[in-house]
């Protein structure tokens, strides 16, 4: 099994988001960087499949030079090699991103053979476009399913499951295939110190992607209004219980 995982470097926004003065980007001066939890699970799954079945694992990102930090994080938990499609760090729209990834996959496959499985996060944490994996799959003529939370590979096919209406939908796809996965697929491991040291020494393959933008075109970012509320403290500790029950009754939650 040869597996390629695509990831995206994003700021780690735990608290309030602050924008740059021109409103075009997040002010990342005081933020660390990470990848989406969906993509952490994609990386972990690739490592697990190759551990179980043999083969090779590759991680790829489109982003600025500093995104090599996220590629090394993936190599620290066991991904073998990394590819950076180096940009100036500006936003690439989903058509441009997918086009550049397709170009890179075709170049990598011309040298090293077909990737049996391409793994994407279901949507990027920041832009949330929900389409790059599907566009890549369509361009390459490979079957694709999104929202995947369980993967089994056997006998030239992949059985993939996703949650739907409280139960599961099961898909059986011939390989090579493309899956966009969600957090919950597995519990990703933490990198070991030797893993980090090994990853630090590894070469990263660098390619220069060609941008073919297609939209939508970002004009500016802004924070949503009206999310903030005024909180009414109705009590402290267990003594608040009667006031809470009175509130629940008033809201029609009990006594219906």
């Amino acid at each position: 099994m040869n597996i390629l995982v695509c990831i995206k470097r994003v700021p780690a926004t735990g608290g309030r988001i602050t924008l740059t003065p021109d409103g075009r980007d997040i002010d990342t001066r005081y933020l660390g960087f990470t990848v989406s939890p969906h993509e952490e699970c994609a990386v972990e799954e690739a490592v697990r499949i190759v551990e179980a079945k043999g083969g090779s694992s590759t991680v790829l990102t489109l982003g600025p030079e500093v995104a090599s930090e996220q590629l090394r994080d993936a190599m620290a938990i066991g991904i073998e090699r990394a590819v950076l499609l180096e940009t100036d760090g500006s936003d690439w729209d989903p058509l441009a991103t997918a086009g550049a990834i397709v170009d890179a996959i075709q170049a990598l496959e011309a040298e090293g053979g077909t990737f049996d499985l391409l793994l994407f996060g279901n949507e990027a944490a920041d832009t949330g476009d929900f389409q790059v994996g599907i566009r890549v799959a369509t361009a390459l003529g490979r079957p694709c399913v999104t929202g995947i939370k369980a993967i089994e590979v056997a006998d030239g096919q992949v059985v993939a499951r996703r949650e739907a209406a409280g139960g599961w939908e099961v898909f059986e796809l011939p390989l090579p295939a493309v899956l966009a996965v969600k957090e919950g697929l597995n519990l990703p491991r933490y990198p070991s110190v030797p893993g980090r040291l090994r990853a630090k020494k590894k070469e990263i393959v660098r390619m220069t992607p060609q941008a073919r933008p297609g939209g939508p075109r970002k004009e500016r970012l802004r924070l949503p209004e009206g999310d903030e509320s005024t909180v009414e403290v109705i009590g402290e500790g267990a003594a608040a219980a009667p006031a809470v029950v009175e509130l629940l009754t008033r809201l029609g939650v009990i006594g219906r």
Partner: protein
Amino acid sequence: MILGLVEHADGRPERLSLEMLSLASRLGAAASEPVHAVLLGTGAREAAGQLTGRGIPVAHVVEDERLAAFAPVAWAATIAQLMSANAPAVVQAAGSDRGNEVMAHLAARTDLPLAANVTDVTLGEPLRLTRQRWAGSLLEDAVLDAPTKLLTVAPHAFAIEEPASGGSAPSVESFAPTLTDDDLRVAVARRLEPDRAGISLTDARVVVGGGRGVGSPEAFSELEELAALLGAAVGVSRVVTSSGWRPHSQQIGQTGLRIAPDLYIACGISGAIQHIVGAKAAKRILAINTDPDAPIMSVADYAVIGDLHQVVPAISAEIRRVTGR
């Protein structure tokens, strides 16, 4: 014309699709364009009959036995053929799992841009829109320049409009798509039903949420007791699932579920933005937390300051006392 993909289950349109139609009818009125619906799969005709009074003159119904099981590429191929036949200005779906998936396939096969999870749209050339980033923690104003505009509509961004009384039913038109083996290659092979029936988090009127403050898998019994008394569903924050205390299927937030209950009772949840975006469509939020300055307080309507291990059992006991249960 504005074409809206209406998802349905058990012969009824899905809630997020009705929200999507609220935007569609607004755009239709602004541009003097009719709104058409398209419904695919088993129960499509029945669900189309439920669209009476929503200002939809035509519902295109696709009843093809090959689409009995959900097949995202075949759905996209069908909508692409309806697009060729009707030349809609806008094609849109709900920003649901299926809506986003089918529209991305449609966008990929027609080589058109797609704006996912829009919260506002102004028609024109180019079309101007606002869409969600970071699952709604941040908004993006963008332009979409394309011969046909493809959109998905952010969950809970638009209220469902009441159907006009005495409004007419859509005229149901059967549409028979041409589907290839490639279109049908990806389809649901089988369904696994839930282990036990319970109140679904996305439909629940009341949700009891637990976070880091719950402290252990065992302590969730306190939240479950309260939930049972309220007919509520139990949800959790990300730290709870990444600690392995509860299954990921109960996670509320950016990488989990979006809920929209009448009341969300957030217990021991500090309120990272990734969690809050999953819960902010709740009409009311009651936070139970030891920290009066926790971020959850900035979105909560009501708060009890205290240890949930004391507060939650006391609320359950009081409900039992008052209701005699």
